[in-house]
């Protein structure tokens, strides 16, 4: 006999939009997907409200579809940890970072911060929030934080080859889900390119080591000096259920130019590795770096510190197409580095005993995808140089079989080369391994997220926020930094970091759909801020009556 049971919903959860910091924890844990993110409208209808031009009411509403929370490839909510820090919940703020990012302090040093590009304060008021600097402050404050050990829920074991940012992220995410993870590293230390190639003036290596040791303490097994290649796969398949390959692109590419093996012709990886391993490298005279990306900039800036009297970068691209970030180029230019754009090197002039420089030709009609271009005839120019360094990208060392069961992550999986993109790729690899093993389509809003336009009653007015203009973190002046490998950007002092949190306009909040909510109260328990969510009688809907 069938019995019909009718359950009456008596209470639902409700979020106080004025208190919510938009960290998204509740929406992650909500069992029925009732919680979604909303972005407040930012009024900019008056012409003199801020430095930027006035916009129409329609444009105000249109801008509600952008958010800092959408731009982090790892799915961090900058507004979330800034809001928690502002509310005095420092530890919860750090935990928000740790939950989604195994290397929060490293990212605090070197992430190219796409979130800051999307910060609406930057678009509508004055300049973006110092999101990266706040993350760095927070992660350094908790650098010795001992996290809870990863849970062991599943029997499946996962092997990750390569302990760079991508491999570490995949390991962290899978360990958090409850798998047993082993990371194989061919070097004597985990950290990959972070330790090998990033210059000291951008990233303090102790920070990398401390963060990796934290991961070890939480339960990730690192096997060092493990030189694996395609021949090791059969054994790995026996011992592990899934294999993630994140071996990166450790070898610098060079151009097939005449004389490219001369003694004073180096590669970026080569120079950076030598410097980072403490070997003495002495440069003098004029150093030409071939390449226009972030690695080229790092190498050029390293060359300045190694004693070069003059450093010039030359690259194919020109104008906005130059791959390095604008702020990187500005910092390099402040250190006296020249950039010659829109050219292609044709010849290395001279020999090992007599290095004379490099010859290049102007180019036009560069195809950004295939790198095909037309030469400008008769524009050959000789550039005198004492050293030439190739920084035109890297390639993998080992040829892994591409059409099998291997999951690829990081540089080896695609053409994106920033640290945060490599980490995001590690996250995707972790999600796909988990999906395959568990046989379900995991809700991957950790990566893909959307925002809705919030109600107009929560509008933000930049006029009131305009006055809050604090100093950005201290950076060394160009003359001092040319002489040493000291980190250029300094960490916020605690009081400065707290003040900076006031600049956040708190553009977003989460909203619980009372029709979908089942009133289980999980969101209330997991809310890291604690004063945001309450239970209200159903069908009471919307905000409190005044």
């Amino acid at each position, binding site marked *: 006999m069938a019995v019909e049971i009718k359950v009456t919903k008596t209470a639902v959860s409700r979020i106080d939009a*004025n208190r919510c910091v938009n960290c998204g924890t509740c929406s992650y844990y909500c069992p029925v997907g009732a919680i979604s993110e909303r972005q407040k409208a930012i*009024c900019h*209808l*008056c*012409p*003199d*409200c801020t430095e930027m031009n*006035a*916009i*129409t*009411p*329609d444009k105000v509403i249109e801008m509600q579809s952008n958010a800092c929370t959408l731009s982090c490839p790892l799915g961090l909510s900058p507004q979330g940890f800034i809001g928690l820090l502002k509310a005095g919940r420092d530890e919860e703020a750090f935990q928000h970072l740790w939950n989604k990012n195994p290397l929060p302090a490293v990212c605090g040093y070197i992430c190219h911060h796409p979130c800051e590009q999307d910060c609406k304060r930057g678009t509508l008021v004055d300049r973006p929030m110092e999101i990266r600097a706040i993350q760095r402050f927070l992660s350094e404050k908790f650098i010795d934080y001992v996290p809870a050990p990863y849970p062991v829920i599943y029997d499946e074991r996962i092997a990750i080859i390569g302990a760079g940012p991508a491999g570490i992220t995949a390991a962290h995410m899978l360990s958090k889900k409850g798998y047993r993870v082993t990371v194989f590293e061919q070097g004597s230390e985990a950290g990959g390119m972070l330790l090998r190639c990033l210059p000291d003036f951008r990233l303090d290596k102790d920070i990398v080591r401390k963060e990796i040791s934290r991961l070890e303490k939480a339960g990730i097994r690192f096997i060092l000096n493990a030189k694996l290649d395609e021949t090791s796969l059969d054994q790995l398949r026996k011992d592990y259920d899934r294999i993630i390959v994140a071996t990166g692109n450790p070898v610098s590419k060079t151009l097939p130019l005449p004389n490219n093996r001369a003694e004073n012709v180096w590669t970026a990886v080569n120079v950076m590795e030598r410097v980072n391993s403490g070997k003495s490298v002495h440069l003098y005279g004029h150093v030409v770096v071939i390449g226009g990306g972030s690695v080229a900039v790092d190498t050029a800036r390293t060359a300045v510190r190694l004693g070069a009297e003059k450093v010039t970068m030359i690259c194919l691209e020109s104008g906005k197409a130059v791959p390095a970030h604008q702020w990187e180029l500005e910092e390099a230019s402040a250190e006296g580095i020249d950039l010659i754009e829109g050219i292609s090197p044709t010849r290395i002039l001279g020999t090992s005993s007599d290095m004379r420089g490099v010859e290049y030709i102007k180019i036009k009609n560069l195809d950004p995808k295939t790198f095909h271009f037309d030469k400008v005839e008769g524009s050959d120019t000789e550039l005198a140089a004492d050293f030439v360094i190739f920084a035109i990208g890297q390639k993998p060392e080992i040829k892994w079989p591409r059409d099998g069961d291997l999951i690829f992550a990081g540089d080896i999986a695609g053409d994106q080369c920033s640290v945060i993109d490599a980490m995001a790729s590690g996250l995707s690899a972790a999600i796909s391994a988990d999906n395959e093993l568990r046989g379900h389509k995991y809700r991957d809003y950790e990566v893909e997220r959307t925002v809705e336009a919030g109600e*107009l*009653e929560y*509008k933000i*007015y930049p*006029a*009131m926020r305009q*006055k*809050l203009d*604090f100093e950005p973190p201290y950076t060394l002046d160009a003359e001092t930094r040319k002489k040493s490998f000291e980190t250029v950007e300094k960490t916020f002092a605690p*009081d400065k970091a*707290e*003040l900076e949190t*006031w600049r956040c306009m708190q553009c977003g909040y989460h909203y619980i759909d009372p029709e979908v909510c089942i009133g289980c109260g999980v969101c209330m328990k997991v809310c890291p801020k604690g004063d945001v969510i309450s239970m209200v009688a159903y069908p009471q809907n919307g905000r409190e009556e*005044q």
Partner: protein
Amino acid sequence: MTDMKKRQVIVVGGGIGGSSAAFHMKQLGIDVLMLEKDQFPRDKPCGDGVIPAVFPVLRNMGVYDQVVAEGYPSGYIRLYAPDDTYFRMSNTTTLEGEEAPMYCIPRYRFDDMVNKAAVNAGVDYLENFEVTEILMERGQAKGIRGIHNGKAVEIESDMVVLASGSHSMVARQMGFYEENPDYVFYGLRGYFNDIEGLEDVEFYYPDKFLPTGYIWLFPTGKTSANVGVFITESALKKTGMTSEELLWEWIGNTHMGHKRLGHAKLIGKLKGWRLPSGKRKPIYAGGVMAVGDAGNMIEQYGGGGIPQAMVAGTIAAQTAKNAIQANDFSKAFMKNYSDAVDQAFSATYIGMEALRQYAFGTPEQLKNTINWMNEHEAEDASMQDYLFKGLKLDPTKLAGQMMSHF
């Protein structure tokens, strides 16, 4: 050096509303601290018209003579229908037996005079102090938190007067904030030179601005005027333009706009401001009173806000005095403030609401209004006469309808 000790009252905002409140509190012997996020003198986009309703307060604060000396008087107003017909009416009020006109005086000057009057009366005062939060305990204000010269500061007090203006985040925290796009206006102001044939205050009502919005010209001299746009957020949204574009379009593309300002020169930049109107939201909480724009006190048709802010300041001062005597800073006691403000202004708001709905809502209404006023010019008819005699609205019924939100 003003110290951060506990005060009886903290006034947030050193504009005309806050200064009036702080000045009158000081006169009543209250220990009051006034906090200002900006530095005076500072500009504020406004029509700059100081009307006789506020003169008694100005006299009391000792700035009336200065306003008369520096302001430019206008005795008449012209309301233009879209078809170029207009109605001219007196803009003077009898005050202590004298006919007092409206004075146009830049807010950059006026607000500074009022602010200095409060400071000179001995009010403790800090600039560059941005109040970010009212500290509440059991529904009762216990002080404020803010940022002063780049440092976070907390100051205790028994009461807080919010005079922090139309964008006030703190007022929003308290739930005082008006968000109804029909009652939130956007103002735009510019000073123009070389205007021909300027005699009176002029109001224009292009169709796009209706209901209730307008373009104003307030003479600041024989050939110069403060010109502005006053439009609700909902009407602005319908136009799909910014308020700046609306003004230039009126000047460039309409017969009247071109005639009036086509050859005039803009001095400086156009500035805008948000103008919440109608006092439809609560303006009090435990230990908290909101004054002026922070309490949405702008008239929802006329757009005036100076008298409301300054008179509400005096009422807040008296309420604070009474509260200190009764040692009662509860929400229930603060309601006395709101009631007194209603008593002082409900007639104004009711009249304004009626004008919005029945006299200036559509182009037809506008035409009828101006025709009727011209027909009855000989009787010296007022806008109230049009509402009650012309449209035959029942005053008691009207008040009943409109009062519902107070």
